[in-house]
Structure formats: C-alpha cells, structure tokens
C-alpha cells in the first residue's frame, strides 16, 4: 500500500487535523450552503435548457453515516471464527444470500443480490486507510476529504469540482446541509433540500411572497431568513411535470439507535428525486445522498438489516427506474461508510467502532465480482480487521474511469487502483 500523496503540505493547505476542526469545517460547509441552495425547479429548468449530453458518466455517492458493520453486510459465513466472535449477532445460514468465496450478503439485501447475479456489483473488501481513527467525526472527515494523514479543508469530490468549470449544477447533494465531501477550494456542490412540498397558496402565498422580499432594514441573518423563504416560493405552483409524481414524504425507517453521526433517513425519497432529475436530463455529474443510523452499538441485527434493506431496495429501484431513461449505462453508484465495526460483539448485541469495511460499486459500467482481499478474522490488529485496500485506490479508479479526470489532480500521486470499472 502506498503512503501519503507527494504533494507538499503547503500545496494542499494542510495542517494537523483535529476533531474540532472537523466540527468547524462542517459548520463552514453549512454556511457555504446558504449561498448555493438550489430548488428542484432550478435543476429542472437546467435539465430542460442545457441537458447533460447522453453518454456522460454520472456518479451517485451513497454515504452511510454511523459506521456500517461490514462483517454483517458481506458475511464470511463459512468462517467459524465469525460465529465465535459474535454469537449474538450472526444470521442463520439459510437466510443468507450466498455470493462466492465463502461470503454472503445480509438477508435484507435481496435487490443487490439480483444485481450481483447480473454482474453489476463490485464489492471491494477490507477498505480503509492507515492508522484507522475510530471517531465518527475524524474518520468521516478522512473519508470525505480523502486525506488520512493531514487535515484538508476540501473534500475529494470538491477538489474534482475544482477541475470543472464553475456551475452549481455539476454536483448536487440531497438534503439541506452540504457534506464536506463536495466542498472545493473555488467550486462547491449545491444542496437540494427535500420534503413534502406544502406550498401555501392564494392570499397567504401573496403575503408570504411579500414577506420574503429583501428589506434595507434587515440585518444579515434576517436577510438570510427572507432569502430562504423566497427560494421556497420560487418553486410555488409550477413544479415541473417531471416531478409531478415526487415521492411522498417517506419514513423509511423505524427510529433506531443510530447514534450521533448525521445522515438522512429518507434514502429512497432522495434517490427517487435524483432518478427523476437524471431522467429529465439534469446537467449534474455527481450526486450525493445519505442514510444515517449505522452506529449500531446495541441490538444490531434488526436495526442494521432494516437499514441495509433500505439501501438495497432504494438503489435497486433507482437503477431500474433509470433503465427507461436511457441513462442507466452511464450511472455508477458508490456506497461507503466511515468505518466498519469491531469483530467481536459487545455486551449489548451490538458492535463498537472498528476499521475496515466493504465498499460497493454498482451499475452497468462495473466489473462485477470481488476486489481486494477479505481481511482475516484471526489476524486482527487490536481486535480490529486489518485494512487490505486503501480507499484512495477506489477514489483514483472512480476519478479516472468514471469521472474521466486524472486522479493526481485530486489525490496527488497515488498508484493503487481497483479494476472494478470497465474502461470507456
């Protein structure tokens, strides 16, 4: 495995990373969002006036917040050490969805299993980075910035955005807060808030419109409050026909002990809207969606199965929805989480923060199958899985083979690759 990129610290604006910086950093991303919140109408209009050329590759990044337990996602069910380490947490063998190599998918992931059978799923095993950090904040910052050793104030896809011409439509995150992932030095992604749109009408709407106008008497925050309402009303009444069947506000999930690391709960709704906007021709190359709740310290089996079922069903539905649009061959979905979990179960039928986990790449352009070595369950490091694949191998591959951009511009010199994407 390679070590750190060879760009100098000055070049990358680095300083030693602390958790506080990430908290502040997230705050900064939020503030930046205020300037780049899009309405669905903005995107729909851009889709009509300047659609993405057919054949342009599209990346959809799915972030699982909280630390998804990789060992109960891609399950080494033939390994006695697996059952020995976590007797409270294992699934019955007959419920598992067997792949190859003694591995099986979580019983809830039937949709992804079908895609696997169609050779559309690449599973990269044992993914992580050197000296794993077990803090949600630190580890998510490391994955999103793509920089394990030093703190960067930009996300890896934000730096990719910096290589593109400035356009708020190039990259869009669903939800009201922009993740650090899409923050670049000069160009950032946009946030597209979702929700059941209940827009007032009639005389009240007119008064709201009046209320949202700028006033010279506004201070900065009052002006921001007025602007947020104005943006809302710009979509009033005429949401474009492509979106007329927007999904209802969905409560995908029971409230589970998801812990403290962010992420949204309505993945299927997010992907539904992404699908409709892609089908409409939105000029967007990178989409970011998320699901929270993976911090399963307790009663993991049911909670995680519910979450993985949502991931599997939402992605499968999304890709099948894309078939009719003629764009399904352009789409690659990347699924990752900030860390895997401890091999040994804890006392409360859950697991604590761990290290390596699987990363999924899904789509027509993917070479289906396993990549990277399955981490050994018997050669643990401090009770945790050894990392066998650096996430920068995957990022480099995605940058080059999906986004058609030299990886060095984003990650510095990095030689590892996974051959999981068909060359165009």
């Amino acid at each position, binding site marked *: 495995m390679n070590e750190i990129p060879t760009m100098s610290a000055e070049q990358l604006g680095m300083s030693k990373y602390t958790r506080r910086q990430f*908290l502040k950093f997230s*705050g900064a991303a939020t503030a930046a969002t205020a300037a780049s919140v899009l309405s669905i109408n903005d995107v729909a209009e851009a889709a009509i006036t300047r659609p993405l050329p057919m054949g342009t590759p599209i990346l959809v990044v799915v972030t699982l917040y909280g630390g998804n337990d990789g060992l109960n996602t891609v399950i080494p069910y033939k390994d006695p050490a697996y059952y020995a380490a976590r007797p409270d947490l294992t699934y019955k063998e007959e419920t598992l969805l067997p792949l190859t190599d003694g591995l099986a998918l979580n019983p809830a992931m039937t949709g992804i299993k079908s895609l696997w059978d169609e050779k559309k799923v690449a599973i990269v095993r044992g993914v992580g980075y050197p000296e794993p950090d077990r803090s949600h904040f630190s580890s998510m910052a490391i994955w999103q910035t793509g920089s394990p050793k030093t703190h960067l104030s930009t996300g890896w896809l934000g730096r990719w955005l910096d290589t593109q011409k400035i356009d708020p439509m190039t990259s869009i995150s669903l939800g009201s807060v922009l993740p650090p992932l899409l923050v670049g030095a000069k160009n950032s992604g946009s946030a597209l808030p979702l929700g059941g749109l209940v827009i007032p009408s009639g005389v009240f709407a007119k*008064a*709201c419109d009046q209320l949202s106008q700028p006033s010279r008497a506004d201070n900065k925050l009052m002006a921001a409050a007025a602007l947020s309402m104005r943006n809302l009303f710009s979509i009033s009444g005429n949401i474009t026909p492509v979106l007329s069947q927007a999904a209802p506000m969905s409560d995908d999930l029971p409230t589970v002990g998801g812990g403290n690391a962010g992420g949204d709960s309505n993945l299927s709704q997010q992907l539904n809207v992404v699908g409709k906007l892609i089908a409409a021709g939105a000029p967007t190359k990178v989409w970011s969606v998320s699901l929270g709740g993976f911090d399963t310290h307790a009663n993991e089996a049911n909670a995680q199965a519910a979450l993985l079922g949502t991931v599997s069903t939402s992605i499968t539905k999304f890709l099948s929805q894309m078939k009719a649009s003629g764009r399904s061959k352009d789409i690659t979905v990347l699924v990752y989480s900030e860390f895997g979990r401890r091999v040994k179960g804890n006392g409360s039928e859950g697991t604590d923060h761990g290290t390596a986990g699987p990363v999924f790449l899904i789509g027509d352009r993917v070479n289906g199958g396993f990549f990277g070595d399955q981490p050994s369950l018997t050669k643990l490091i401090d009770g945790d899985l050894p990392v066998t694949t650096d996430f920068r191998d995957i990022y480099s591959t995605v940058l080059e083979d999906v986004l058609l951009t030299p990886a060095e511009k984003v990650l510095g010199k990095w030689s590892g690759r996974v051959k999981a994407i068909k060359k165009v």
Partner: protein
Amino acid sequence: MDAKRLEISRLFNRFAFGPRPGEFAEALKIGPADFKKSILNPPAIDIGAPKEPVFADLGPRPAPKSADSAQFSQDLRAQSKELTLWWLDQMVLTQKPLQERMVWFWHGHWATSIGKVNYPLPMLKQNQTFRKFALGNFNDFSKAMLLDGALQVWLDGNENTLKAPNENLAREIMELFVLGVNRYTEKDVKELARALTGYQVPRSTGVVILNPKRRDTGAVTILGKTAVMSGPEAINHLVNQADCPRFLAERIWYRFISSTESLPKDHPMINALAGRDIQQGLTVLLNANDLTNSNYSIVKSPVEWFVAVSKALELTPSKLSSFAKLYGYFDKLAQIPFSPPNVGGWPTDEAWLSSASAQFRIVFADWLVKQADLSALEAIAPDKRVAYLADLLAVPEWTPRTTVALSALQKIPARLLSLAICSPEYVVSQ
C-alpha cells in the same frame, strides 16, 4: 430602532424563551434594569412547573423477537414521549425561564443523545442535573456530570478501563465541556482518561458505580500536575484552570450573544465567572452593554422558536393534538430535544435558515395557530393588530417590508399570526 425595545426583546427571546401575552408591555413599563432583576431573581417555588415524570427501570433489553420484546419497545417509546412532552411543557410553563433556558443551554453543552443512550430514565436524570446546576457552581456541576449515567454511556465510559483506556470521555471533557480546544495536549487527554477509568453504568438505570478492579490507580500528569487523582479530583483540577472561566464565557457568548463575533478578550463575564458561579456570569452579561449592540443578532433554533410561539399563544405542548406530528416537525427542522446531532451540540444561525426549514416552519406555524385561542387578537381592531403582534411576540420593530405583508392579512387573524411567527423579525432575534 428603539434601544429599550431591542434590549427587552433580546432579554425575552434569548434568556427567557419569549414572553407570555402582556409580559412584554409590562417589562417595557418597568424598564430593562428592573426586568433584568426579575429574570435573575425568579420566585423560589416554580408554581408553573409540570409534575416531573417518574420512570420505572425497564431493565436490560429482552432478546429480539422474544416474548417481552414488544412490550419493552412499547414501554421505551411511552417513556420517551412522556420525557419529551414533560420537558417541552416545563420550558413553556415554568416561572423560572432563565433557569430553564440554561437547562436548554447545558443540554447543548454536555450534548448527549438518547439515540445512543436508548433509555429515557438516565436522560431524565441528566436533565434534572442540568436544572439543579443550571445557574449554580460549575465545579460541583462538572463533578456531578462525571457521575452522570447518560454521559458515561454516550462517551463510552464503560469501556474506559485500566487494561484498555478509552479516551472518548476524557477528550470531550477537555475539548468541549471544561477547557476548550488546544488548551491541553494529547498527552493530557491520555492521562485524564487513565484518571477516569473504572466507572461502570448499567444503561437502564444510569447509576454510575466505581469498579476498583477496572481502575488505574497509578499517578497521572495532567496539565503539569503529577499525582494519584480520583475522577472527581481530576475534574476539580481541570475546572480550577484559568482557561475554564474563559471557555465558559465563550460558550455562553456563542449561544446567547453571537456565534459569528468572538467574545471580546477582556469581557467582564470572564472575571465574573472566576468563582465558577454561573449566576454571577449571567448577571454580568445581562448588565454589560452587549444587549443594546445591534451587531449581535442570532437565529432562534427550532425548539426555541416553538417554545416562544407556545408561550405567546398559550399552548401547552402535551395538549397539542398529536405528539407524532409535533415530533415530525422537530425531525424535519432537525432539532429533536434529547437528540443532538453530535457531541458538539446544535448548529447555529444560518444552519436553521434553509428553504427546506422555511417550508416546514410555515406548515408547523399553521398547525400551531389552528390550535390556539385567537379571541384576544380578534378583539383588537384590524388596523391595530400588526402593532399588537410586535408586543405579543417581543419583536422590537417590524421592517416596512413586513408591515406591508402583515397589513394585507390584518383581517384574517389566523393567517396574520402564522405569517408573523414566520417573519425574519421573529425567526431572528435582532
């Protein structure tokens, strides 16, 4: 802008969860100085307070799909609902609004989420500790928090042992609770973690015990002092650092005055906190001139907005038509009491001002107004209603823009009220 109206508006909106009908006019009449005294010296007995819940210990979680599992989940949900509604009622009904506002502040300071703690009982106990020390001595408070079951569970105190020290709690105590970032070294964190080893807490009760077998009894070196320290002794040592009152002043400033402008280096609140007496610090802050400085505006967070609306409309949260709906609005606005997003607490200002939240606020406002008794507003002549609402809601002044918008609805009281509570002047404490 009228300086007196601005100051009293800020006192209500930032330190007292907003006024009840009539209170703003009353405060204007007695003036800011006397009003501050009344905020700082509330009645000794809180006659408005709702009865505190009493929760049974639900015990360990039964095996999934076992016979007891469904009942257990139901009990957990019922307690959780009761806990949330009780606290919201307390915020709205209390006669000690500054104390309750500080409970809300401490909830964001020692930010602990029921999402990980799971059980409402330890969250209730933590909330009671916040109230006991809301305006008390920060040294005693911090020692009580060390033995707080919810906090110990939240930050993995159970896993911090002689054999395998876990730094989670120690780090946050230094970084987020007592001193502030960069006021200690990584070595200090490790050493503090050792001093805090050995605590164990059954999740369901939140009663912390000390297990001597798990405890590291060796000498530790923390911020230059080497000694064998018990947990409380280590906390005492941290709270006694000169950085502690500065840090507290910074945090209070950030949440009550401005999240964008820094605390002035020589602000008198820092000295006022020298005895670690929180009431002293707030007394000085209220009497400093920051509350008339027009630079320092701040956005009401969704819960602050909801409580202020409830007080103005005389609504009791537990009597609203649907808890599920209420919870849903908090969820959509991204602020559910007892569920802060992370140990750093709630976000501030612009984070609450996306178009998504504007939309949910309008629907939420409508839902609340529909449940309110509007007869007082209806009894006022239509052309006086806009001015009346400025006092009802403790808005120092409507902008001309908003005056025009509100005046257009002055004959439709419900609509008028909904619009007023969604206005920039109300969402932001100017």
